[in-house]
């Protein structure tokens, strides 16, 4: 199963995604961490996320670019967090896919989805503030938007998390 989870900043989407994976059962859990720790604020964010999942038995694998280098057992449940960081890394880091980011990321997602039992992907809504951005930022929005749209098309479930409340966009509605 592929489950795409989206939401705004501070919406509780990560906690929801982690709990969703935990509720899938005791199968081995992996966490693909994509945030590159480039300053104190990102270190703080990473520490906060580590605290959040410390009791949930995840094995953390750091991956800033190229999902295809990852290997997991076929019966594992995997959480990728989060797509917005991965896309930024692919665009801006030297070893990233650059202009080929959209196709590289989608190929990576399909590769993982074929390998593991359940793949949960956290992404981010960065499209609704009504601001016009410079060309580079607009390209980032475009790439992330295309990737979200493409994953949603082949995902089994798409959920938007609004202040901790899951809203089903695609798939059967969840029961509390």
């Amino acid at each position, binding site marked *: 199963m592929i489950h795409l989870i989206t939401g705004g900043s*501070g*919406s509780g989407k990560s906690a929801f995604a982690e709990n969703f994976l935990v509720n899938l059962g005791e199968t081995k859990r992996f966490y693909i961490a994509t945030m590159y720790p480039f300053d104190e604020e990102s270190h703080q964010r990473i520490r906060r996320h580590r605290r959040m999942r410390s009791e949930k038995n995840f094995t953390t694998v750091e991956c800033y670019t190229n999902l295809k280098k990852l290997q997991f057992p076929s019966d594992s449940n995997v959480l990728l967090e989060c797509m917005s960081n991965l896309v930024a890394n692919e665009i801006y880091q030297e070893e990233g896919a650059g202009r080929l980011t959209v196709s590289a990321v989608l190929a990576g997602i399909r590769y993982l989805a074929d390998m593991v039992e359940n793949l949960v992907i956290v992404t981010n*809504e960065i499209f*609704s503030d009504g*601001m016009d951005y410079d060309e580079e930022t607009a390209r980032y929005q475009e790439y992330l938007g295309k990737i979200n749209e493409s994953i949603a098309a082949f995902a089994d479930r798409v959920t938007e998390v*609004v*202040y901790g*409340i899951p809203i089903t966009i695609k798939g059967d509605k969840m029961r509390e």
Partner: protein
Amino acid sequence: MKLIIGGAFQGKTEYAKNRYSVKQWADGRVCPWDEIFRAEGIHHFHEYVRRMLTEGLDPADAAQRLCQENKDVVIVTNELGYGVVPVEAFDRKYRETTGRICTKLAEQSSEVVRVICGIGQVIKG
């Protein structure tokens, strides 16, 4: 506790006034800090959070106290955080703090309504 959320200028306060019989509102933009603990309704709650952060106060503490002392309050707040990560550190802190607080308030609320174009969708309750 009831929580009304949505983007700016969506008719949230009007919607809340029609749905709940709240006569006395605390305005988060200008009200004294303590007013939210006894008000029937609070609107512009996100501005209250921003003011506290600007003053170096902790809005999470205020939100916790609100949950304990004013359990029947109706809170109207903008839904933030649907844009590109802001350049300014304060702006990032403001939108994330507001999000985390609203997630807590949503958890405590018996009803959460999201208003778009003046139309409310009950997403909890």
